[in-house]
């Protein structure tokens, strides 16, 4: 059983990648198995858990619900591309570590990507807005307490940093 592949160009974490993908393959599958980016996790493969959340042109999507061909010519950001540069983590990553917001870690990439999208859109969210923003991301370990706290602390830090002279 062979399936014809379609050439696509997807800019993944800033780097244009030319890939041949079967039309039936999901973006999640192609990220993990073709692009070698296994940070994005498969928790359900049907859009229920949010573990595979990535940014598609800066909009968070369940990458298991997007066909890879739909991402042709578009930008995808995964957990591996969240840090501003190789030597520096995103403040969300720092705070998730420092505040215990990651336990088994399987939901963590999706939640950090979702939180980044939330803070990019709404730099000063209320607790309610944070919780609503995570409504599609299942975490079974933490009770969400420390995840919400890490996002709140990040928002405050980023606001304070933005106010500082460069």
């Amino acid at each position, binding site marked *: 059983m062979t399936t014809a592949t379609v050439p696509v160009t997807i800019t993944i974490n800033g780097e244009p990648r030319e890939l041949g993908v079967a039309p039936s393959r999901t973006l999640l599958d192609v990220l993990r198995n073709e692009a070698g980016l296994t*940070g994005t996790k498969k928790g359900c*493969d049907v859009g229920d858990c949010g573990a595979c959340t990535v940014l598609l042109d800066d909009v968070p999507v369940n990458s298991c619900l997007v066909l890879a061909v739909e991402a042709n010519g578009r930008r995808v950001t995964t957990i591996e591309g969240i840090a501003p540069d190789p030597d520096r983590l995103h403040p969300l990553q720092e705070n998730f*570590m420092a505040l215990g917001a990651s336990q*088994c870690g399987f939901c*963590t990439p999706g939640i950090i990507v979702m939180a980044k999208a939330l803070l990019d859109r709404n730099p000063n969210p209320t607790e309610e807005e944070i919780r609503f923003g995570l*409504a599609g991301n299942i975490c*079974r*370990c933490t009770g969400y307490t420390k995840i919400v706290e890490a996002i709140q602390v990040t928002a405050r830090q980023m606001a304070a940093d933005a106010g500082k002279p460069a």
Partner: protein
Amino acid sequence: MTSVIGKSVKRTDTLGKVTGGAVYAGDVVLPGMLHGKTKRATVAHARIESIDVGKALALPGVKAILTHADVPRVLHYGSPHPRSASVTQDQYILDTKVRYYGEGVAAVAATSEEIAELACELIEVAYEPLPAVLTVEDALKPGAPSIHDVGPGGNLVLDPFVITRGDPEKGFAEADLIVEGEYGMGRPTPAYMEPNVCVCQWDPLGKLTIWTSTQSPFMVRGTLAEVLGLPLNKVRVLVDHMGGGFGAKQDLFQHEFLCALLAQRTRRPVRMEFTRKETFLGGRTRHPGTVWIRQGFRRDGTITAREARVVFNSGAYGSHGPGVTAVGTAALTSLYRCENVRLEGRCVYTNTPIAGAFRGYGVVQTYYALDILMDEAAETLGMDPAALKLLNAVREGDIAPSNHPITGHGLEDCIRRGIEETGWAARGSRPPAKQTGRLRRGWGMGCEMHGSSAYPGIKEQGNAVVRMNEDGSVTLMTGTTGLGTGAHTALAQITAEELGVKFEDVAVVHGDTDVVPWDIGAFASHTTFMAGRACQMAAAQVKAKVLARAADRLEVSAADLDIRDSVITVKGVPGMSMTVRDAIAAEKGIPAPQLLGEGSYHPTKSYSFAAHFVEVEVDTETGQVSVLQVVPVHEIGKIIHPIAAAGQIEGGIQQGIGHTLSEDFVVDQRDGRPLNASFVDYKMPLAMDMPPIRTIILETAPSDGGPFGAKGVGEDPIIAIGPAIANAIYDAIGVRFRHYPITPEQILAALADKDEAQAA
């Protein structure tokens, strides 16, 4: 140097998790790797008449198919705890009989997952249907179809587990009040985020390497070796990070055997990953069941006698049924002190999904019943429920479920602190049933205790090897698994503290059964407690070797030396010191002997305690229960890593809220087909549902056995939250529920019944 114990140092495992670099078993890709899939039964109980694999084998890309005719027929333990009576030998890799809907009947390896799936559809299985036994009641009926040939018969997994202490008849005769009730439990599942997955590869010398998501790598090694007929040094189990397990991933699953055999057959690496649906179907659930309890009380509230009958539904196989039944039943000897008890626990096969180990291990169910019954008794006695529980709380010297004496007054401390923190005495209107209005609020509390380690049920042992390298840095080798709790960080803290080096100087090696010391697995709240003590013992040996060498060089007695921050100082001689690095440096070009320490710790028994205080709001129009706040008070001896400990508590509460209000994996009562095997239909509490949690951790009853007095915390937080919520619902609306989950439909029906009764 300040102590690193009690500090929330940066965990060793989380950098990979926040950057995406952490490697889970499902991330492993090997050259030439094939993809395996399990063909699953679509009946709950049947004999397999025939399996036709012809069409499937003809599919291009299919490399191998296994049925029961192709695999070793060795009866094995699903949950392979050595040196333990808590498991039942009742499983084959593939059998000629199907015992639950979704059981594996064949397996395929193919060049892609899609082809393997398609091949599974093309496998034709002819079944001779047998009557499905879907409830405990049906399974226990005389003449019920027998699900297994092994075991005591009558669909029992084990002979009834019976405990008698004191004289229950006398105790009940002395009672002024006798309260009894039967409590029913649904079927929550662990629902860990990472579906089960493994990758298998054989080397040319006939050695199997398996990357798998397991809590118990050495149990995987032992059982694979036994069933496949290999020596232990021909099976290597690798697990770096894993995406949760909560107890269930102690079992060996069918796909782990099948993957190994497919890889052997095809001479290529094979990967098998569950879909989410398979994780429900072929996973492990908590034991559903019923708990009947009767307690006698004196007028002052003192308990005089307790009698209980526990019946757990094991599903299609024994798995942890014997252990869960023993631990859950024995738990009723304690929590609230009582000299006269008679308890009976039974565990019953049915043609439903397999129940296994799950955080709280039988105690979730039995303490749910006990703690609601205590509230019912308090009402009849005219007492405050917290006061009644405090009066009867287990204390120093009482005999624990394990038959060991309790140390300290942890439970009393938790109850008292919670009463203070919540302003319990002034918590609002009473009697509760007088509330009117659509939204009604109530408070409830529940208690629990749980052993650190599964000893003496399992003859456990924690091991560690600590090595100091030539530069003074330290390598800790542990066989424990990184389940996500932060335990490896705690082990590094303990090692650093004992040895006198900085936390950052300790690197943890784990996850390779060829390299690390044997470990029974990460479960039973015992990793920090038991493996932690072994680390402490191993570190102490290394420290002694370093000090002996330093003593020679400084020409002082080793007894006068200590290490702090990797610097050796001499007691009473300020200014005289030597770095660890200098002490272990080569002498005249000759390197120091190996600085190795090894610790093996056989645990004593210690119990951790908790009291959970909860406020709920019931919407009397929708039946919806919102948990408004939780104040969990835990006593765990000594906190090693405060943030990790609190994280365990918050996560356990999340699962406990789910158990109590929404989670129930249901099978169709006509044919045993699971009805809600997805995250949409199996409803867990998410970010929007979770209340603020104000965690309080006490260190008032340290353990003699645990490192620096530490005890376990993993199991505890899921236990007390359930009865606390049920009791709070009663406080809000005056309706007593004796089961979980308590659903909105049931609340509305109960309120309607109550209105009708009042009108009549």
